[in-house]
């Protein structure tokens, strides 16, 4: 069966999506009072379907973002990368992961709900980025309980936790039985709207009522599916046209990145040799 192309089906295959989403970025515990729920943080949003992949023009290999040492013009493997705080130009103080975690050791493993709030009270200007929380083994029941109890009380948990170099103020919310985590801006980061707020003259009651009438006539249900993005639509149109007369290019198979240096060269060559022989990519038969 021919797989539907993504030009027509807006979603990628469920398997790939699942792999993509559940890439874990943090795991730890959500707690409220004496209850502790092991969880991991997963993505709740991702780039849309009309997003492009950067490819190598030569062989159409996908491009990955990596850290490059500009002095040696070399890709630097993760184990050679360190974190530095710039004391003054060009002079860095190295900070290790352990030192970073030592700043708030509890918060770097626990999302501790301090209190419960009404989500409606949170000005949307505070919303930063949404994630989902998925239960880890053994935490499924407590997870369900927190989600269901918050749903019934229409409350959300307010908590703080540390991920990487940063502490986040977050809301833990229940959505259809699933816990989500929305990072919030600290109030110190939220600029006041007062500065741009206009002078309040006498309200033009008449004009306001006229506008209300117009707005009333334009009331609809929120339906994110129907708001087409002009650029996306244009691109899709161009792509559909193009697909008719142009074959897609294929990228070569890209293996997993392996640990280098620890492996014996001969052993690697032997292993690769077996693979080469098996796939019969060459023509070793004599004519």
């Amino acid at each position: 069966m021919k797989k539907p192309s993504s030009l027509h089906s807006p979603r990628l295959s469920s398997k790939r999506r699942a792999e993509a989403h559940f890439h874990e970025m943090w795991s730890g515990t959500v707690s409220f009072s004496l209850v502790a729920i092991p969880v991991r943080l997963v993505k709740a949003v991702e780039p849309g379907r009309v997003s492009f992949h950067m490819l190598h023009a030569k062989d159409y290999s996908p491009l990955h973002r990596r850290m490059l040492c500009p002095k040696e013009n070399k890709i630097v493997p993760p184990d050679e990368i360190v974190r530095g705080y710039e004391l003054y130009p060009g002079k860095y103080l190295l900070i290790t992961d352990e030192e970073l975690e030592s700043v708030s050791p509890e918060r770097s493993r626990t999302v501790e709900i301090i209190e419960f709030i009404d989500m409606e009270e949170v000005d949307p200007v505070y919303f930063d980025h949404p994630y989902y929380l998925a239960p880890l083994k053994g935490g499924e029941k407590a997870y369900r309980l927190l989600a269901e109890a918050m749903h019934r009380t229409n409350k959300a948990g307010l908590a703080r936790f540390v991920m990487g170099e940063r502490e986040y103020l977050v809301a833990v919310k229940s959505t259809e039985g699933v816990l989500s985590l929305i990072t919030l801006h600290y109030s110190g980061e939220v600029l006041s709207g007062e500065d741009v707020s206009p002078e309040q003259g006498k309200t033009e009651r008449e004009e306001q009522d006229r506008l209300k009438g117009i707005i009333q006539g334009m009331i609809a249900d929120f339906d994110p599916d129907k708001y087409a993005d002009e650029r996306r639509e244009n691109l899709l149109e161009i792509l559909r046209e193009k697909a008719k007369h142009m074959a897609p290019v294929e990228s070569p198979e890209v293996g997993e990145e392996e640990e280098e240096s620890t492996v014996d060269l001969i052993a690697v060559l032997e292993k690769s040799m077996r693979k080469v022989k098996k796939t019969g990519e060459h023509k070793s038969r004599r004519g």
Partner: protein
Amino acid sequence: MSTKVAEVEGARLTLTNLDKDLYPSYGFTKAHILEYYRRISPFCLPHLKDRALTLKRYPDGVGKEFFYEKRCPSHRPSWVKTAKIPRDNGERMTVCLVNDLNTLIWVENLASLELHVPLARAHSPETPDSMVFDLDPGDGADILDCGRVALIIKALLKELRLACCLKTSGQKGLHVLVPLNSREVTFEDTKKFSRSVAEVLQRSYPDLVTARMGKEEREKRVFINWSQNDPSKTMVCVYSLRAREKPVVSFPVAWEELENALDEGNPRRLQFLHSEALSRAEKQGDLFREVLVKNQKLPYL
């Protein structure tokens, strides 16, 4: 008209014995040779640049006496670029750098039909910018066998995410070059790596490949000469003529071309005469450019 004063890129040069036939059984004079090198120079010069040239001079043409000249002749014109490279005895030797068309024409006027250069540049003689697998067929094996080995090497290197380029030696063999272009690699690295590859291939294809130089071992097999990865060795430069009966060129081969030649079982598809070399190079550009620019790291060393 046997002697002519030529002006090449502003430099004056006296060209001698222009009608001397240096490939007598084919009919190819020094004038032809100069014309070949003039036209191939845009492709050839980047590969010669900054490398210590070893002249292989055939004053009386192919099949006659020849001699190697590593030292740059003292009667050279003032504009010939040179470098001083250390010799084993501690002395420093002045060598020619063929960095421009003038020098190339001057060198050819000396009947240095073949151009041989090391894998490293003169200013960093211990840093090879490519690794080579010199595939040399023993008795009873031919260039198509070399082609089979080249394909295996390519597939094996691909597993290690290394790209490589292929050229004919212009004689019976093939050269597989792995671009490196990194300041960190040494001949010790390239020798170890190429030798390991050669030995693994020999174990996997004992009837086709040998990693050893001995004559009997090479019989009906392809010898992978890994020992070329050495600062003291030179290789024939890509686009150089060879001093054979016909003016055959060491020329780049696209991998599909090799596969086609193997499918057809036609060794002549892996032989490029001067005229075909010129028309192809002018049409397709330098297939060997990657060797100069691609930066690759030898893994697992």
